[in-house]
């Protein structure tokens, strides 16, 4: 382990080395941004679950991939929350309560993430981020898939109220009323959820997948307000995360700007798709894609373990795992993005066909 610590990578030059060795990596980051942006626009939040591991697959250390992602999240959410704010979908009071605790969570995540990078190098950081990713996103992906399948059986089924009923039983005082969302939530529950949202955003760059479901299922916030408040939250969390990772010197703006090159193109197509494609498809795509990204990250873990001398693998086996991880991640991302674009253009063609009949219906 000592040897590994000595091999700690010069964070200032690591991205330059990657770009110089394989210039195509730059295109890879743009492609990741486009796929992440399309998914982000389509799902309403997320995209990071693809972009963070994708950059790691391209050779970027885990901590720098997360730093680039959370910095990217700041600007993206800034553009998105403006629109939601105009529509009145943001509960600012709820957002501020969550934000305060989320900032503590992000700070803790930056410290822990930085610790792994400094002590165990690129492989240690990669292993920590990957293990956290697999653990949390497998639970989230599975829950989303079950929810989507339930909706498929009963189209009128709303969000499950099991957690909401459970949280109502434990009404720990003080309770706070949030006017826009029209819910009463225990302050202690807010603290716990906010911290975990922040810690997750700071560790893997994915916070919305905890924040939005928590607001809907635990607090009982209407879906549209939850999505708007999450974007408001994401903007400040992204800013705080960018600043903190910046203070540690982990933000290489080249990665962030390349992500933007693709994401701010894809996000518009994804967002238009939400008006045209059925919600069930949106939920199914999200759940399946998250689970495929989890599989991809699981396949990447042995390589880090080999580098840290935890396990021994032949070069051939290690290469197979690495290749499998890349194929799963890029393959599933490309297929999902292709499907979203295909459905969007197909639905638009159908809508135009109806418009010729003198109507202009939404065919969702």
């Amino acid at each position, binding site marked *: 382990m000592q040897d590994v610590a000595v091999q700690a990578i010069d*964070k*200032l030059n690591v991205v*330059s080395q990657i770009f110089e060795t394989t210039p195509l990596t730059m295109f890879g980051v743009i492609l990741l941004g486009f796929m992440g942006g399309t998914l982000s626009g389509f799902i309403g939040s997320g995209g990071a679950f693809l972009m963070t591991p994708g950059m790691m697959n391209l050779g970027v250390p885990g901590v720098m991939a997360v730093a680039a992602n959370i*910095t*990217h999240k*700041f*600007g*993206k959410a*800034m*553009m998105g929350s403006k629109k939601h704010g105009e529509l009145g979908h943001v509960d600012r009071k709820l957002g501020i309560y969550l934000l305060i605790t989320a900032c503590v969570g992000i700070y803790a995540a930056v410290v822990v993430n930085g610790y792994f990078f400094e002590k165990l190098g690129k492989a240690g950081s990669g292993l920590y981020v990957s293990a956290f990713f697999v653990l949390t996103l497998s639970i989230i992906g599975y829950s989303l898939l079950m929810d989507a399948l339930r909706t498929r059986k*009963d*189209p*009128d089924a709303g969000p499950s109220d099991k957690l909401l009923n459970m949280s109502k039983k434990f009404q720990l005082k003080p309770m706070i009323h949030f006017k826009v969302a029209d819910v009463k939530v225990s302050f202690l529950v807010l603290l716990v959820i906010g911290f975990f949202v922040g810690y997750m955003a700071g560790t893997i760059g994915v916070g919305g997948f905890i924040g939005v479901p928590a607001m809907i299922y635990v607090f009982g916030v209407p879906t549209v307000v939850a999505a708007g408040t999450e974007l408001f939250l994401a903007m400040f969390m992204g*800013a705080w995360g*960018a*600043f*903190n990772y*910046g*203070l*540690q*010197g*982990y*933000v*290489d*703006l*080249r990665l*962030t*700007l390349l992500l*933007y*090159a693709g994401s*701010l*193109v894809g996000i*518009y*197509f994804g967002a*238009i798709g939400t008006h045209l494609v*059925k919600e*069930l498809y949106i939920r199914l795509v999200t759940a399946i894609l998250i689970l495929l990204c989890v599989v991809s990250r699981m396949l990447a873990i042995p390589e880090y373990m080999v580098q840290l001398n935890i396990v021994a693998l032949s070069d051939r086996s290690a290469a197979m795992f690495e290749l499998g991880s890349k194929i799963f991640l890029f393959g599933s991302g490309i297929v999902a993005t292709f499907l979203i674009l295909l459905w*969007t*253009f197909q639905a*638009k063609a*159908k*809508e135009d*066909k*109806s418009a010729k*009949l*003198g*109507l*202009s*219906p*939404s*065919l*969702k």
Partner: protein
Amino acid sequence: MKRIIFIDSTWDINSQALQYALKAAKGTDTEIACVFLAADDSTETIGKAGATLDSVRENFSSEGIGISSHVVAPDAEAFMTKINGLMPASLVLIGDAAFTNEMKKAGASVEALKDKLTCPVTTADSIHAAHSEKAAPAKKTNWFVWVLYAIGSALMYGVFFPKIESLNEKLFMSGTVLGGISIMAVVAIHAWIWGNTTTILPKLFRLEK
């Protein structure tokens, strides 16, 4: 002759849904296949539904529109068989149709029709919503401003991007407060400029007007 299938359970002559069907059929050599989804399968209800459709037919004929009328009991299989029998159609329009829970569970619902039929399927509510959205004036592209954003984007990627490597050591990755603030400032400015440049893309692909 084209055909529009209109499904409803109330058949209010003045309903907006029916007006949409009329609008779509007028002057286009289109027949409206009126499907009355009855609340139950009693003889009395079916008989009343038939009579209602007769009066609708009289109103429609004065407008010069041909219609065929069909009364269906609230049974998923019978309903889907009837709709399939009326195919091909150029549009299925759904007004105030009372799909029972049993029908939905057995696979007869608005969603199921959208899934199974190849022609456009829509509801009067969604047309109304789309028309309401249309009422709001569409934001016109200010080409002068867009060109400014595009120039800004070109400068960001063409001039600023290659300089980041040298700026990293001095500023962005220096691990200082100034470095952190600079990162946030660059990201905010870039997201704004590039985000406003790419807004044109959905219009170019005709996904937006």
